[in-house]
């Protein structure tokens, strides 16, 4: 059986196909997590939480006086992008008749104690964002939502590359993460961002249940 977006989303797919050469392209696509999301609103609220985190991260970081010049310009643009993503996703959830999740409480620890820590944490956020969007893409049914989510995903990849380069990281494995991006399941993404959420209830409680 050929898996199409339509039957995958509806959960009609009983078995994962071998996907020979596609596997070579991307052998880590998380088929097994088919129950990650129930609806487009679920996916969007998941993305919204990550975007809230990113937007607030840059709001605090860019106010900390750690960067200047071109770096500041770039990070200011990144902050604007993340804020735009928050607003766009919230508006989209509402259009779909859903309720946008509330912003979580955050704790970025000592991420703003130095330029290097700020950028290093940013690099983690951006790459996690890329992987989160890719891992969730297959669950989106509305084509306009898919187009927007893919479009946001690409911009997060731009952010990740530029921040990796500002840090002077190795091109492969620092600026680029291989010839293809690697998706992460929702559980893996939540593990990665949990350290930045203040209090276990922030995403483990009611607000996160809809994730």
């Amino acid at each position, binding site marked *: 059986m050929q*898996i*199409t*977006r339509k039957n*995958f*989303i509806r959960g009609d797919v009983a078995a994962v196909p071998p996907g020979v*050469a*596609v596997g070579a*392209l*991307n052998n880590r*696509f998380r088929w097994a997590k088919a129950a990650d999301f129930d609806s487009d609103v679920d996916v969007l609220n998941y993305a919204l939480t990550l975007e809230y985190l990113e937007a*607030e991260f840059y709001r*605090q970081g860019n106010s900390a006086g750690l960067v200047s010049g071109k770096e500041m310009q*770039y990070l200011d*643009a*990144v902050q*604007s*992008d993340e*804020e*735009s993503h*928050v*607003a*766009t996703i*919230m508006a*989209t959830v509402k*259009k*779909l008749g859903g309720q946008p*999740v509330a*912003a979580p*409480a*955050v*704790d*970025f620890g000592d991420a703003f104690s130095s330029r290097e820590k700020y950028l290093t944490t940013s690099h983690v956020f951006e790459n996690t964002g890329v992987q989160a969007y*890719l891992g969730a*893409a*297959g669950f989106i049914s*509305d*084509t*306009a*939502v*898919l*187009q*927007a989510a*893919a*479009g*946001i*995903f*690409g911009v997060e*990849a*731009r*952010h990740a*590359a*530029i921040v990796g380069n500002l840090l002077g990281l190795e*091109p*492969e494995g620092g*600026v*680029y993460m291989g*010839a*293809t*991006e*690697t998706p992460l399941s929702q559980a893996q993404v939540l593990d990665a961002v949990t350290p930045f959420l203040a209090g276990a209830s922030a995403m483990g409680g009611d607000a996160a249940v809809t994730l």
Partner: protein
Amino acid sequence: MNQTQIFDGQPVLSFRSEHDRRSFLRSALLVGVGAGFVGYYAGDPTSASSANALGTPAAPSAKGDLEILNYALTLEYLESDFYKQGVDGGVLSGRELDLVTPISEHEAAHVTALTDTIKSLGGKPVASPKFQYPQGTFTNRTKFLTTASVFEELGVKAYHGQVTLIDSVDILAAAASIAGVESRHAAILADLTGGEPFPSPIEANLPMAAVLKAAKPFIA
């Protein structure tokens, strides 16, 4: 205490500047979700002027997926050939060479992956066209990097123009996983050429015909 309830825990957002507000309004336009939305926005999705240019693509199908893969393969052939000549041409050095060499490797890997995928689906991979470039493309650093930047932005828009037209979810995942890498390339080349690494909060997209028209001058 770093603990902050961001946006006071409320789903509200203020814009820091008029530019941000306009940028959001254009993005919101893009996400025209709802019943009956079947088209996609041609051109720059954040440009209000093109936001009404709805395409009317064919419904996604397995046959359509093969066509999309061969289209992507053609673009990857072009990029792969271009970077091979550029890296071999010796106009780059130091950090720039270090940043561009993996791009060349990625494009070659994309060609291989797409070729194998088309074969595995029972399709026939298109042959590589012969390519031509303006004189001096590979002997002048600025010319090479500027052309590379154009190709990367075009490649990003090309992939995003197909996102909603792909039928198979595994091909969608594969195409997206390539598109993200092209976005990284595009950002780095913009940085190297003094361009704008983040031209839009959401990647723009172009339909196949517009991309092929842009690529045509390079096909001999």
